[in-house]
């Protein structure tokens, strides 16, 4: 199967059971997307699939022939700098998922105004056990307001 990841074409021969997350982490050396729960319950594995945020742990890679994936390694977005400034993380394990999710979320919002409550609701699929939530929201708020 052929998959474009962060703009680069990849030809892969995978076990049909291999998820997109495991394909990235174990077969392509892209460990930015994290495995926090492996069941779509934490958001740490969030990547952008054809521009939309998805849980890569619940997608079988074999279904993605011809698709385009962006991981944290392929992102260059103001949200990243805002996370640094607002201390939007502690342990960092949920961070790539939070950032990919925020980027996807901002695209979904398409310029609509995002009060804090709306950011929180839209970001609720990304758990952070360190409790960086207020800082993450501050980071996203700053970027959304630009």
């Amino acid at each position: 199967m052929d998959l474009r990841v962060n703009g680069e074409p990849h030809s892969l021969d995978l076990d049909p059971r291999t998820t997109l997350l495991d394909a990235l982490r174990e077969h392509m050396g892209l460990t930015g997307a994290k495995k926090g729960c492996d069941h779509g319950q934490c958001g740490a594995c969030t990547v952008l699939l054809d521009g939309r945020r998805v849980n890569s742990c619940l997608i079988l890679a074999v279904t993605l022939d011809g698709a385009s994936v962006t991981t944290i390694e392929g992102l260059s977005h103001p949200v990243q700098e805002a996370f640094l400034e607002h201390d939007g993380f502690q342990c960092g394990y949920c961070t790539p998922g939070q950032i990919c999710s925020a980027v996807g979320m901002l695209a979904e919002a398409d310029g609509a105004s995002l009060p804090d409550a709306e950011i929180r609701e839209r970001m609720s699929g990304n758990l952070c056990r360190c409790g960086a939530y207020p800082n993450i929201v501050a980071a996203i708020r700053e970027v959304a307001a630009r």
Partner: protein
Amino acid sequence: MTTTTERAVGQPHRRVEGPDKVTGAARYAAEYQVGDDLAYGWVVQSPVARGTLTAVAVDPLVEADDVLAVLWHGNAPRLGKADDPELAVLQNDRISYRGQAVALVVARTLEAAREAAASLQLAIDAEPHDTVLRADHPDLYTPEKVNPDFPSESSTGDVDAAFAGAAVRVDVTYRTPALHNSPMEPHATTALWAGDDLVLYDSNQHPPGIAATVGALFDLPAARVHVITEHVGGGFGSKGTARPNAVLAAMGAKVTGRPVRLALPRQALFSMVGHRTPTIQQIRLGATADGKLTAVDHQAVGHTSRLFEFAEQTAVSTRHMYEAPAVRTGHRLARLDMPTPRWMRAPGEAPGMLALECAMDELAGSLELDPVELRVRNTGFDSYRKCLGLGADRFGWHDRDPRPRRRREGDWWIGTGVAGATYPAMIQPSSARARRQPDGDVEVSIAAADLGTGARTVLTQIAADALGLPYDRVRVRIGDSTLPQASVAGGSSGTASWGWAVTGACRALRESGGLDEATFDSTALVEKLNQEGKHAFGAHFAEVRVDAVTGEVRVSRLYGMYAAGRILNPRTARSQFIGGMIMGMGMALHEESVLDPAMGTWVTHDFAEYHVPVHADVESIEAEWLDDPDEGLNPMGSKGIGEIGIVGSPAAILNAIHHATGIRVRDLPARLDKLLPSL
């Protein structure tokens, strides 16, 4: 020439490793590329709570091409002696809890390992199990000590007489459920043998401790086990000591001759890496009519396992928190067919102060006395008094009508609550090395771990000031067991302990008259230090709203005021405080590991069922602190800040729920089903 360098300590420096964490470059234990022959381990867990494993049968057809080894007690390599019996994995036939590791599959691929593990046939002689903690459990006993090294019982004055004679009395029982640390990064190890030496990329809070513990199991001195722990995806106590994943990965690598990666699935974390014991706590408070405590009695019941004793120090903070002529505390344990409880953020203080601080709120209600004032009248700690007073002002406490169930906006009942917080200031011996680089920069090394605490950043600040160098001229290396030995990242002691060693090494280098390298070991100084009676304090304030239609609780505001030594980096410190408070919110409202007594295990074992707070749960939250350096404690004047946020914040929320609704929830979490019938 003398140059003036701005002090780095106290500045809100960004995290040193931040750029790596926001670009995906930061590597965690399961993410190292260690060769083309990497194999994958998968743990097989016991489906019964008690019994013996008599045989393991492998279906020869399942994943036949890819399975490299199936290990169980019948064929696993013999290990050396383990201080922690839970690390003696696959060594005998006994099953002591449901979810215990009973076999390990190693395969060429992750998919094959998981499927082969699922298909193993386990022959088990199951026995009746006992997994339910009760206040009247017939086997309750008083342990000799509670963690880390306190007497189980304490008594001053005549509590029974003082309580019986008190003008106002409160006698209540609070229950907290089993809780799970649930760091975002599941426990993971990538193990490889380099000759007879062992290399472990492991997610933990104490690389030198892991090296020593795992080394002993494989008859290796700690120096021949190299533990690399560059980044850790949270631990909250559950990674303080080696967990079975490290031992199993090393075992798998030894048997197969390949590097083995073993990342526990999320579900396994709920039985294999520890939890906070459920507690049943009876609190009796007696007071004079003007609100002076005369009797305090705190009796806590928890559980331990059949394997060894872990005694949570639930009632210990009650020994110092308030002044009363008669104070008694005690702990009892039941040995259950359950996993051994472990450290979870603020062990002892978190559940214990929940009960004490809710009971104090009940006492304030009985006295018709403001709950802040009740606390002020009964503490002997000036810094606690200041946190209460200043915190109340900053939060806007004084506007409240003290009567419960008075404020209603639409469908919402609204209330506010307060609770105190305390955490001991602990320091442990550590060593560090400072080495001058050819370009004049200095590299500081210590085998500490940064779990997201900001340790790497704060140590850089401490080192810069001790060296008299600008912050960006110092590089701190941590996360490697071969560096100078450091204490565990636990007990809110990391920065104080490591910072002391780093300060010592840097000062020694600076004063060495031109040497290239200096080391420092704080052991002698720390052993001389009297740490008794040193505490951080705080006051938590919460405003909640409770939906009269549904019983849903929302925390509109959560505020913490702390006196926790000198704050070394306000940016990362604030994050730690509010992170603890948010975990406290989870403890108050969401978190519960639900036991099925018949199955002998918790039936909540993933993030869909074990609820932690999400973005939408966290509205307004803020942490502030007093300027409170304790120069006598360590060279930085700091105290630990990693745990105090979870101490008392749950009680503040529960007290606010009572103020909003008039309902006292005494068994956590305060979910809607407990509120709805009385709303």
